[in-house]
């Protein structure tokens, strides 16, 4: 199992022209995440995505350290990104190739240089996610659920040790949200899941409630979700 450590991490952002020169996005946070499935919950703009993005270096801490399996994200970003996959809320920006098979093939480029063998490997990946029949389809013609599933397949094709998913079900209908949620929770990878879906959070092994740039509750999902529900309803 992987280990994600945040050591006194602070994230601030400059606000040019704003009333204050910079705002704190994430207050000093220290965490040690060793559980298989970790949920990040909290209101919009609370800092969940920032916390998730720290794990593979999409956001750099203003101070403090983020370490994944002993690798400092700031210093060993390349190695960390090979270990940590990331799934975004909107898969459209994540799919960069015109066809389904080419997009998965792009993920495999650094693993397999030969085009024929790469295509074969990509087809195997697509088959394992039930996307084999869509292999030659244009990504523009896919439904929202199919796009998110493809984005996930593209990330998992390289078999990362950790998967960070930033609200991956927010844009999906109930059926697709369930399908993607079940798939994520069944992965062998360590999962860090930022989500508004509290049912999904309840199925994780640990939950963190993020509010106003700070982790305000951390523990068993049932307790953390109950705390969130209580505070959200005032």
């Amino acid at each position, binding site marked *: 199992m992987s280990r994600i450590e945040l050591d006194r991490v602070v994230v601030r952002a400059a606000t040019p022209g704003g009333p204050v020169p910079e705002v704190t996005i994430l207050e000093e946070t220290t965490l040690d995440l060793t559980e298989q499935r970790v949920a990040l919950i909290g209101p919009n703009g609370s800092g969940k995505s920032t916390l998730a993005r720290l794990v593979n270096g*999409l956001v750099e801490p203003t101070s403090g350290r983020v370490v994944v399996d002993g690798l400092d994200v700031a210093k060993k970003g*390349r190695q960390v*990104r090979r270990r940590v996959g990331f799934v975004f809320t909107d898969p459209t920006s994540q799919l960069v190739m015109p066809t389904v098979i080419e997009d998965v093939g792009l993920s495999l480029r650094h693993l397999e240089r030969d085009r024929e063998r790469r295509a074969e490997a990509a087809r195997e990946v697509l088959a394992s996610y039930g996307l084999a029949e869509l292999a030659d389809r244009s990504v523009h013609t896919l439904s929202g659920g199919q796009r998110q599933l493809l984005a996930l397949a593209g990330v998992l094709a390289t078999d990362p040790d950790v998967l960070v998913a930033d609200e991956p079900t927010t844009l999906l209908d109930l059926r697709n949200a369930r399908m993607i949620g079940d798939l994520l929770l069944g992965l062998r990878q360590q999962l860090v899941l930022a989500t508004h879906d509290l049912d999904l959070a309840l199925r994780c092994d640990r939950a963190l409630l993020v509010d106003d740039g700070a982790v305000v509750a951390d523990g068993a999902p049932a307790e953390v979700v109950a705390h969130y529900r209580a505070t959200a309803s005032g």
Partner: protein
Amino acid sequence: MTVAVSPLGDYQPGTTVLHRLPVGAKLLGLVVLSVVAVAFRGVTTTGALLVLGVLLSLVARVRLRAALRSLRAVAFGLALLAAYQSWQQGAAHAFVVVGALLALVLLATVFTTTTSVERMIDAITRWLGPLRRFGVRPDLVALAFSLTIRGIPLTLELAAETRDAARARGLERNPRAYLVPLVIRVVAHARATGDALHARGLGDD
């Protein structure tokens, strides 16, 4: 959700002779024909290019819908150009100019529908290989190329969504209500794509 497709046509898997031709040969052919269209401008050349475009479309089994879509994307501009050229220099000259452009669009469609982007990336990476010693990173150039191709339908998709949003607010006649959000959305999408590439470790090599 609005779905837009590339005006140059998406790749159609197949086994025709044009599918099997090396990317370099097809691209070189396209360049040569473009040069011919300009250097040997005339009714005969334009007519021959149009016939060739139609023939190669048939050989490549380009779907009629894809061909029409490509032509429709440029139809308005070409119609204006044809009208202007007819008025200024006569119908024959209009045919030469507009017909040649039409033929080249058709030939470009044949190229994109018979060549997968992955093959193009492989070819570009191979061609730029010798430039590594000068600091050029072929993988990155090839990736930029594929993003450009992907960007065409995506921008059209964003444009259609933005136009619908302006229309829903009764602002369809206000260009600012359409163009400003469109530019912002395209830039935001570019940033999100950058994040996604970064997250996938593409460009780290």
